[in-house]
């Protein structure tokens, strides 16, 4: 049955950052240079083609954009300047908005002003909530940072964190299930055994933590910076959510705090490096920056900075009031980051990428099982 071509899709994708996609005349250089483009995946050319022809269902039905880590090699090779790398980036944004049923991420990607407004709104609400909580309900005072009478008592914040984590997990889970359904579940002629699902489950945490795939790119620095930012962020999350009490206890528990410091350095260093890169626009993957990229970086950097200020002022300087103010601002950065950025914007890729790797393995094994192994013929060497 013939699929309907929709030439209008390109216009829509331009709002997600795609540019010059129509210049591509399918010479195939990009897929030739992409280290990940191996049977049965054709990265990035197949997606470019489906995008050019506006085959929306096909585009939604593939996780190939998630297998691309934007090393930018393909964009350099492209003779027509069709920016395949950036197109894959914009496809990831578009897919994020497709997985999210609420339509919020679609709104945010389509107009960065909406997202900024949302972020500002959420941070103001957080501020008001904390202040109300702090002064009225908890009867804490500005001067007390920890222990009884603290402006922001640990257990309250803890509940808030857990609530946020629950919301975040719920949204990401539904979106991931939708991603699974779009790319694998509804695909009739793909039979993945239950055992295959179970057998490969370990891939999820493995890729989540190591971004092993990113390391296969030629240049290792992008992977390392990303790993640094990510691990620091995870450490910070673990410390804040699970070890909050100890983190806030009067005496410094060096075992926890060392990790804290390292994570902060990682976060600050990584984000600053990324921001400078995006300003200098020297590497290809920093050439094009979508507003959401800026917001994402600013939020993390802000959160990390305010976190350290709050820590230093309390731990080192004993200035509880300053610590409290810093903590307030810190929460004004953290809550929008967790509540808006993760579920409805760029950060949701932390769920989709590992899932994509997992699904890729499932697909490859299933397809290999279904079709007889096509003998990988060695290219014929003509006699000298």
């Amino acid at each position, binding site marked *: 049955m013939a699929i309907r071509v929709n030439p209008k899709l*390109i216009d829509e994708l331009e709002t997600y950052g795609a540019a*010059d996609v129509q210049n*591509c005349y*399918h010479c195939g250089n990009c897929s030739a240079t992409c280290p990940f483009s191996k049977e049965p995946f054709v990265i990035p050319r197949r997606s470019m083609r489906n995008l050019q022809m506006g*085959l929306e269902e096909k585009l939604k039905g593939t996780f190939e954009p998630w297998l691309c880590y934007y090393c930018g090699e393909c964009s350099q090779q492209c003779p027509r300047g069709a920016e395949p790398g950036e197109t894959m980036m914009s496809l990831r944004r578009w897919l994020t908005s497709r997985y999210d049923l609420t339509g919020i991420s679609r709104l945010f990607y389509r107009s960065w002003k909406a997202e900024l407004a949302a972020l500002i709104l959420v941070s103001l609400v957080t501020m008001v909530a904390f202040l109300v909580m702090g002064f009225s309900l908890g009867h804490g005072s500005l001067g007390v940072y920890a222990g009884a009478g603290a402006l922001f008592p640990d257990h309250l914040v803890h509940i808030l964190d857990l609530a946020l984590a629950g919301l975040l997990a719920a949204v990401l889970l539904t979106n991931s299930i939708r991603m699974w359904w779009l790319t694998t579940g509804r695909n009739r002629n793909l039979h993945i055994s239950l055992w295959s699902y179970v057998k490969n489950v370990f891939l999820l945490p493995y890729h989540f933590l190591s971004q092993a795939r990113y390391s296969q790119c030629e240049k290792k620095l992008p992977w390392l910076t990303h790993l640094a930012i990510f691990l620091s962020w995870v450490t910070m999350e673990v410390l804040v959510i699970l070890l909050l009490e100890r983190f806030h206890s009067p005496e410094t528990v060096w075992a926890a705090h060392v990790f804290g410091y390292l994570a902060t350095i990682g976060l600050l260093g990584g984000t600053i490096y990324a921001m400078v890169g995006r300003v200098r626009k020297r590497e290809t993957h920093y050439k094009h920056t979508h507003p959401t990229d800026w917001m994402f970086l600013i939020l993390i950097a802000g959160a990390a900075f305010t976190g350290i200020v709050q820590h230093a002022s309390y731990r080192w300087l004993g200035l509880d009031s300053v610590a409290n103010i810093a903590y307030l601002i810190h929460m004004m950065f953290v809550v929008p980051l967790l509540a808006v950025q993760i579920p409805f914007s760029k950060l949701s890729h932390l769920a989709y990428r590992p899932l994509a790797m997992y699904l890729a393995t499932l697909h490859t094994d299933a397809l290999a099982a279904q079709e007889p192994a096509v003998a990988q013929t060695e290219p014929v060497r003509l006699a000298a």
Partner: protein
Amino acid sequence: MEELKIGVFICNCGSNIAHHVDVDAVREAVEAKPGVAIARSYKYMCSNPGQDMIARDIREHQLNRVVVAACSPRMHEKTFRNACRNGGLNPYLCEMANIREQCSWVHSDQLAATEKAKALTNAAINRVRYHEPLESLTAEMCPATLVIGGGIAGLTAALELADAAHQVYLVERTATLGGNLARVDLTAPHLDSARDLLTERITRVRANSRITLMLNSELQSLAGYVGNYAAIIRTKNGSGEVQERKVDVGNVVVATGYQEFDAGRITHYGHGKLPNVVTSFEFEQMLRKGRIETRHGKLPQYAAIIHCVGSRNKEFHPYCSRVCCMTALKYAHELKSANPACYVSDIYVDMHAFGKGHEDFYKTTSEVKTLFLMFEKNERPVVRKAGPNDDCEMLIEVNETLSRERIEIPADLIILMVGMEARADSGEVARLVNISQDKEGWFMESHPKLDPVATTTDGIYIAGTCAAPKDIPDTVAQARAAAARILGKIAKGKIEIDGVFAEVNEDRCSGCRMCNELCPYSAIEFNDETRRSHVIPAACKACGACVAACPSGAIKGRHFTVEQLHAQIDGVLA
């Protein structure tokens, strides 16, 4: 007959002959043949030293016959005839044996190839014994030229000749000049107007006193030979009655152009049935009127262009019509500039962007967001009316090669890039001026690479799309090339007629007139008083039909006499 002294020269042609033919064995075999004075073998006979050797041997050994066993006579017969001429020997006393293209290159068995080479060389020796010296004749060259076809090619050729102060008769079948180019709005890739190209030429043609312009006219008959053609032109003037006019010309330039492929022949494109399926020329009319709209007068939201309509496929024409790809890109541009909101799909087989500036033009067409869809040339798309709830007039279904998907393309207006084909009546023109056509009906050039504007008939030249599909730059280049060739001949003043032609022996001719009707060039006259037939040397093309048919053997085919051929037959079987 004087005592025969034959020089036999056997070429190695590097390894081309020596690889399969034992050249020395051939030399030894022929050395002892009666009449053979010397027999040599040499690496490259056609090289200068090779040719000098022939000339030197002729002088030293007083050779009166030369046999060169080497490549095909079609390749170097002229070369070795000149070598003989340089040695003081009449060039027609030379004969070649083809022991390369028809021996060493096609027979790998060395023994058989060598035996064959011996036989062929022996046959040449037998034949050359009966060769007679022949002298070429000269005839006057009339400076006037007949140009058939008033398109860009005809106009260019006519102007080129007239500007060189020579008389030109420009014959155009229709009432207007400009040909197919006049039906076009802009030209690819620089989007300059066709009208600008033509008006300048047409005004100069009309103003030039040396060009006799004959509109509504056709060539009725052409008699004579290069330098001495008599053409009868038939003109239908306004009131429908016909006048005939005889003009004397030296050369003829055929520039009759092409006709577009009838898009109706591909039924599943729906041309003629679906109103909004138009051919490229119909779209050009829209462009010339300055209004792109569907038959119902609304601006098309979706437009589709289908390439290779009638070209590059098995059923219709295997060749590429060369101009439609760039014209299609031009239409994409014009569609977009007329209505930026229009989504243009370009459905092509391969994008032939071979000319100057074409690749950039292709890139800029991509940049205006044209969607390029590729299909396999023998799996043509199918056009059908869209359903009521579709937001377009028609849907085109095709197997798209780049994505290997079967897709449906929305289209409110479909433009069919119809290919070029030879004009339906090109056969008559070919017969009138006595040139041949290839199996597609295009006029055949004398040599596809070395001699593209001349034909195998001296004095008849072809220029432009009547010879094969080509774009405007090539057409103009060919028109000027043909004009230049003619100017060269006119400047020379005389034409040299090859010494090879038929000749009636009046002592033997019985006046039976068997030969009179056989000659396609009517080169044989019958003299009523003497009741004898006579061949006009300049008109005779030496085909030999009359020589073979003369019942009393009274017509001698110079250089292809019965004795020569009999000797060659005996020689090849010896």
